[in-house]
């Protein structure tokens, strides 16, 4: 009895396994809901994005569908990994790109992507509608700014209220012994959030070599303190560094639902409105707020990838990405601010966050040139 069973069992198992593999592969191929509708649209563009860009079923995707309805150009959203991964892939495949348009290269990654000649320059007619401070970042018009966001220290309002302590206002406050052991930051070697905050301190305190800081509001008053000295003082004040934003925010920060021990975290200017929108139970006040002085501006860009099959349609898509219709959907789906000035912001953004008037920033070229050195220096001071 058992003489024949295992043979046939094994054979049948292998055969059905192989059949299922084919079937599942087939399913997986057909089960790719994009906003594209290839039946009506002769051209389907591939929009490469970072992985937090929704691929279906949000108002952002509905907006893309109206583009398809109006122009008969389909759009298939393909996530290419996190922003850094996407930038590296774009560099590797420059000239023979994975898609037609890329959304989401930010100013910390821009320079190295432009150096690799990834994009076809294009000046959208909508450019005058965008914030000139943003368009000024790309004089060559290789890419078009689409949104911006700030990386800032967030604080847990209730924690400070309960202890009748003033939350920090400045970088100097973060190094104040009265606020010892309260701040958690991300490692700039592994986290883009951490990198942005490190750049904020460099913009604020300077590297000590040039002697000219970008900001004249250095409240530490010494004038001699460079950014590494500042980090020395943060280390002395018990700053904690972790590997990623989600560990910092959910495991170590007291203001999130994770309920960690520390009331100060490096996060985003849009985190407080997100806490309101995604609160359970619903709430009208934000549990957290932003230390505006510490904000570093991240600007994201979109562009036509050089070597794509449909450059004309790709330019039309870029125009649409900075249209009012699309930009209006950006805040609540991506938690960033639209690059276009005439967009009415959602009330929750107005109530619970602010666009920092004078954010810290560093030119993309300078970031690309020195980031590895800076990260190594930071590591030497903070980790070892």
């Amino acid at each position, binding site marked *: *009895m058992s003489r024949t069973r295992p043979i046939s*069992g094994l054979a049948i*198992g*292998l055969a059905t*396994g192989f*059949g299922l*593999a084919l079937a*599942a*592969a087939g*399913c*997986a191929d057909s*089960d*790719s*809901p*994009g906003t594209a509708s290839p039946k009506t649209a002769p051209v389907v563009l*591939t929009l490469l994005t970072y*992985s*937090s860009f929704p*691929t*279906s*079923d*949000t108002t952002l995707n509905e907006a893309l569908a109206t583009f398809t309805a109006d122009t008969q150009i389909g759009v298939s959203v*393909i*996530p290419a*990994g*996190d922003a*850094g*991964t996407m*930038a*590296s*892939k774009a560099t*590797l495949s420059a000239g023979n790109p*994975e*898609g037609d348009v890329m959304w989401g290269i930010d100013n910390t*990654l821009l320079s*190295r992507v432009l150096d690799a000649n990834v994009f076809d320059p294009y000046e959208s007619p909508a450019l005058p509608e965008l914030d000139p401070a943003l368009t000024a970042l790309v004089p060559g018009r290789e890419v078009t700014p689409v949104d911006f966001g700030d990386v800032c220290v967030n604080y847990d309002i209730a924690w400070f209220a309960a202890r009748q302590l003033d939350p920090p206002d400045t970088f100097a406050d973060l190094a104040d012994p009265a606020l010892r052991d309260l701040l958690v930051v991300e490692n700039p*070697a*592994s986290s883009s959030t951490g990198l942005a905050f490190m750049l904020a301190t460099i913009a604020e305190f300077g590297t000590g070599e040039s002697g000219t800081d970008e900001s004249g509001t250095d409240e530490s008053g010494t004038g001699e303190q460079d950014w590494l000295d500042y980090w020395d003082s943060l280390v002395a004040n018990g700053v904690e*560094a*972790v*590997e990623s934003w*989600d*560990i910092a925010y959910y495991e170590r920060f007291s203001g*999130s*639902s*994770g309920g960690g021990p520390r009331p100060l975290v490096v*996060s985003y200017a*849009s985190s407080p409105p997100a*806490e309101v*929108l*995604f609160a*359970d*139970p619903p709430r009208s006040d934000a549990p957290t707020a932003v230390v505006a002085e510490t904000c570093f501006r991240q600007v994201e860009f979109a562009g036509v990838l050089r070597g794509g099959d449909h450059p004309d349609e790709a330019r039309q898509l870029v125009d649409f990405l900075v249209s009012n219709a699309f930009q209006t959907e950006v805040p609540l*789906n991506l938690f960033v601010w639209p690059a276009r000035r005439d967009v009415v912001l959602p009330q929750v953004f107005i109530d619970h966050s602010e666009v920092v008037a004078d954010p810290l920033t560093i030119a993309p070229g300078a970031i690309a040139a020195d*980031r*590895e050195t800076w990260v*190594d220096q930071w*590591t030497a001071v903070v*980790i*070892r």
Partner: protein
Amino acid sequence: MDRRRDPLTGVLAGLPRWLRWALSVAPAVLILVFFAWPVATLMIEATDWGDASRMLTRPGTASIVWFTAWQAVLSTAATIAIGLGPSYLLSRWSFPGRRLLAAAVAVPFLLPTVVVGAAFASLLPDRLDATPAAVICAHVFFNVAVVVRLVGTVWAQLPDDLVGAARTLGATPWQATRMVTLPLLRPAIAAAATITFLFTFTSFGVVQILGGPAHPTIEVEIARRATLLGDISGAAVLSLMQLLLLVIVVAVAGRAHRSTVALPLRRRRRRVAGGGRQRAMLSVAAGATAAFVVVPLAALALGSVRIGGRWTLTAWTTLGNRSIRPGVSLPVDPLASIRASVGFAIAAVAISVLIGTSAALAIAASRSGGRLLDVGVMLPLGTSAVTIGFGMIITFDRAPFDWRASSWLIPVGHALVATPFVVRGLLPVLRSRPTGWLEAAATLGASPVRSWWEIDVRRLGRPLVTAAGLAAAVSLGEFGATTFLSRAGTNTMPLAIAGLLGRAGDVPHAQAAALAVMLMLMTLLIVVSIDLFDSAAPT
């Protein structure tokens, strides 16, 4: 000189050459096309070898390599030492809840570290946070399943009478274990140690979450160079170095896999605790195992029903509905990710079982060629996911190979990672073929092919189910390779969980935990089903 190989030079040598070739073809094609070609392309096209000296002489590199190596050695040793206990308990003893416990032990291994790492971290005392000790603890937690699966399977089939004979001859229980049981288990232990070493040497998530910024492994440094710094050349150099180190380890370990003694492997009846003392010891052992495995998982489950210190089912009731408020949706669809993951897992299991079975048979039935295939099959496990992913981007970029955004690359990638488990699960069984069986078959007039089929292939049925389960687990929890492949459509569950964890707010956080619980339950279900099937098989 090497008596162990006699069966090969005997009857198996009579196997037609074409059969061995045929068995090797599928695994070789998979490895060459989807692993060797992309990695080689990256090494050739994107790597500036002038960088090699820059990377290797960089002051940080030596300390990264040193940390990677010693933590992997300690983690492997600790995993084997601690894993043998549950292996023995679960394979030799029968007690209520045994099956569930066996399944629970396997769960951490297949859950993405992104998810369980955080739960694990929350349980560690603060002074262990961000220390190598935390990393090693977590590695043990994640990899004990490898030991239980690979060693337990063999242990369950060891004949009782050998130990009994040793005891009758005056051996103490310890002597009997050391001189009889352990040598018999050696091939399986070596297999488990090899896989554990590969996993801990290339560890990414655990090191990120529990090691903190001060302790990067080579794998972490590769990913950081390739993505954040855009230094793909430096990443490729490190990746090749990592691979070379691992090839050496696997090649050396490969020797130890060979069985020292041939044994009739057969299902044995598991013992039931006799007296009160035995029963008490059994309870303590089972309780300790359960606590070790279940507590972090329970912490994870708790996270899905507690928001800000309050009990709530919001995460579960909103799981199917992405629209949190009018006009506000989450970027990921948790339910769709479950469907996607299941589809990919089925495909990946089918591919890896097919490929892994032919590879194991080919390896067992040949010599030097088999050795090469053995190492080749293991290579993807030791290669940084980012290297394979980026390699694919620049390799499969022109017709007729423009596969860059094809969804089927995902199950193929999963199969690359899962196949080694299938091979490692089957080889010990094939290699412990009792001496004389093949000769007996030959004497009775069976052709070499017939004897091989009847004696080798047919014995694979049960271990294959175990291996398939492991493969399914690997696919469901796979994170690294999937993140680096661009693809249309729905995220897999681990990616959806990571996506939810990337958003601020109560609901995304709790939903991430809920989805992680789903992943955990699916895994439990798979493992329990396999065990049920296994025990229903004819003896």
